[in-house]
């Protein structure tokens, strides 16, 4: 016979009765917080939109005073999430902290693809939009090169771009950027191998953002669908906590649709055939040769990243042509680098210092 369940009912009852008064008080205060004015704005650092091509645009952030580093930094985010991650909350904004370090920042806004964008390829995004933005910044500052920093798949795009146009990139920074896809650690890497890319793209045209949202939730349902909201209930009387929680919710469930043809190539060439790290990938009729990445490279990744595990990032520095490379492995997860005040305090000055040392 099955043993009688031993759920600690007595423990739960004792906890409930002990916490009842505390909970009632918390609820009363939470009511004031939730019904009162909340500042949940994301992407609040002032900027100017200086370039627009189709749906893609470029945000320009000007540092106060003269920039310490004369070469501006172009930030490229992935197509799967919004760039607002880099400016999520005022006290933990990558963009704002870079400005404080005297770095002039440009941020790519990939916009919201619609059905008409379904035929846009990776070639259009990199040889087209990204290259045009780099050219625009170079002309604007009368400089031959820019500093390029890529986030997640935006970092992968950065590596590809740097291999195709080494003459345009002065320094390259990749953060949690997957470049080696044939691994069995990350769930995304495992699942994507099973996906029929052609069937997916032919059916949906663009990959719906909500399908992406669900996929990200399924990476860790215990934390993302349960514990996170338990934490919210425990802290909903704390205005600052609530504001930051809502900011993160706004960002995390705002995945744009992904242009179909671009997705097809990302899935097939990167996740399924792992062509990039082998130097076999082709874009716009040209081979993406990593030995052409000869500029200084700073490669940053998270030790506990469940989306892009370290194994997917750390091979890059040994495959590029540059001799000035550095790997930084932080004890955090995928977005910890961008939203943790601790890492921003440590990392942003280090990045600015690294760029400054190579700005000559």
């Amino acid at each position: 016979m099955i043993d009688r369940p031993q759920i600690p009912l007595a423990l739960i009852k004792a906890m409930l009765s002990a916490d009842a008064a505390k909970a009632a008080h918390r609820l009363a205060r939470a009511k004031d917080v939730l019904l009162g004015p909340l500042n949940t704005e994301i992407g609040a650092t002032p900027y100017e939109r200086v370039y627009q091509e189709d749906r893609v645009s470029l945000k320009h952030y000007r540092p106060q005073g003269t920039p310490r580093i004369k070469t501006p930094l172009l930030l490229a985010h992935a197509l799967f999430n919004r760039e607002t991650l880099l400016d999520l909350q005022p006290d933990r904004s990558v963009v704002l902290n870079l400005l404080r370090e005297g770095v002039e920042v440009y941020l790519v806004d990939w916009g919201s693809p619609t059905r008409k964008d379904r035929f846009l390829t990776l070639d259009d995004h990199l040889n087209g939009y990204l290259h045009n933005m780099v050219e625009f910044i170079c002309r604007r500052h009368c400089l031959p090169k820019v500093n390029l920093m890529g986030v997640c798949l935006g970092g992968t795009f950065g590596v590809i771009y740097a291999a195709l146009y080494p003459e345009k990139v002065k320094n390259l920074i990749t953060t949690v950027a997957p470049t080696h896809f044939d691994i069995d650690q990350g769930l995304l890497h495992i699942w994507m191998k099973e996906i029929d890319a052609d069937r997916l793209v032919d059916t949906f045209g663009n990959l719906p953002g909500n399908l992406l949202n669900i996929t990200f939730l399924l990476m860790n349902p215990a934390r993302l669908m349960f514990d996170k909201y338990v934490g919210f209930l425990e802290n909903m009387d704390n205005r600052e906590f609530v504001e930051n929680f809502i900011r993160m919710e706004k960002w995390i469930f705002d995945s744009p649709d992904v242009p179909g043809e671009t997705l097809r190539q990302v899935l097939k060439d990167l996740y399924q055939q792992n062509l990039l790290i082998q130097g076999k990938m082709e874009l716009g009729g040209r081979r993406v040769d990593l030995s052409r990445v000869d500029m200084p490279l700073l490669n940053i990744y998270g030790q506990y990243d469940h989306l892009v595990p370290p194994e997917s990032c750390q091979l890059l520095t040994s495959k590029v042509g540059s001799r000035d490379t550095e790997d930084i492995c932080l004890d955090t997860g995928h977005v910890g680098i961008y939203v943790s005040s601790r890492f921003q305090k440590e990392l942003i000055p280090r990045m600015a210092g690294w760029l400054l040392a190579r700005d000559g």
Partner: protein
Amino acid sequence: MDQNHLSANPTEPLLAAWIKWTMDFWESMADMGPGPQEAAGGAEDFSHAALKMWQAFFSLLTEPETVAAVFKGINPPSEIIMKMAQAGWTGYFHLHQQWLEGGAGVEEPYPEAYGFENLDQDIFKICSEIYEQDFRQLLNLPQVGLTRLSQERANRAMDRFSQFQGAMAEFIYLLYLPLKKSLREMQRPETGGEEPEEFKDYYRRWLKLLEGHYMTLFKSPEYTGTLSHTLNALEDFTLAKQELLAKSLEALPIPSDRDMDEVYRELYLLKRQVRELTRQLAQVAPPPDYPEDA
């Protein structure tokens, strides 16, 4: 039981067989519990009394006279209705039979930690088989006449929808398994340590278990296979639905997705051509000044 042997009323043998199965099942379940001599209170006596009443009621139902009386006076339904009803009944009978067989066995008290090798997904296989054998064939009946194509499209969409629902149910069941396993595991006394005194510690222990179970599941071939199957079913349903909608909206003066895709493709190719020509032109005669904003 010979299900092909049909009497004057085709549902009679099935009904009788189902009743017999149910009685046997509850009898065996009752035998598994504590006997009357072991019963400490009145609850067990009551359950035995209820079982006796249940048996008596079913015995009465299985008598041919009762069955004949039940069906007496009911006009014979049309053949197609009977066929559909029989399909449904057969499916239900099959499902019930499987459930009884599963229920009679005793589940292992505690699950093996972080193991998802032998998943009990038979129920979905059975449902799928029932659908394939008894219902899908009705949706695949050859259509004739003027509305043949429309009917075929509607049937196809319904078929794909049913298949997607089946796949989705299996997928959700898989997602539920770690929850079930972690809760059952929490019933096991902590080995080599003390039971948590604080509820929060208990919660944290459960969350850790749950997270571990999910990670193991997500890396298992069963999960990736089911995920892939569900996605394929969703894609099939989406295509069938789009086809049905597009045809239904043809009467309205609005372009379909296919029309728009053709326009978008042409626009895309034209833009690419214009960009390439502009680039070539710029190489021949560079523009005198670059604009600040493109």
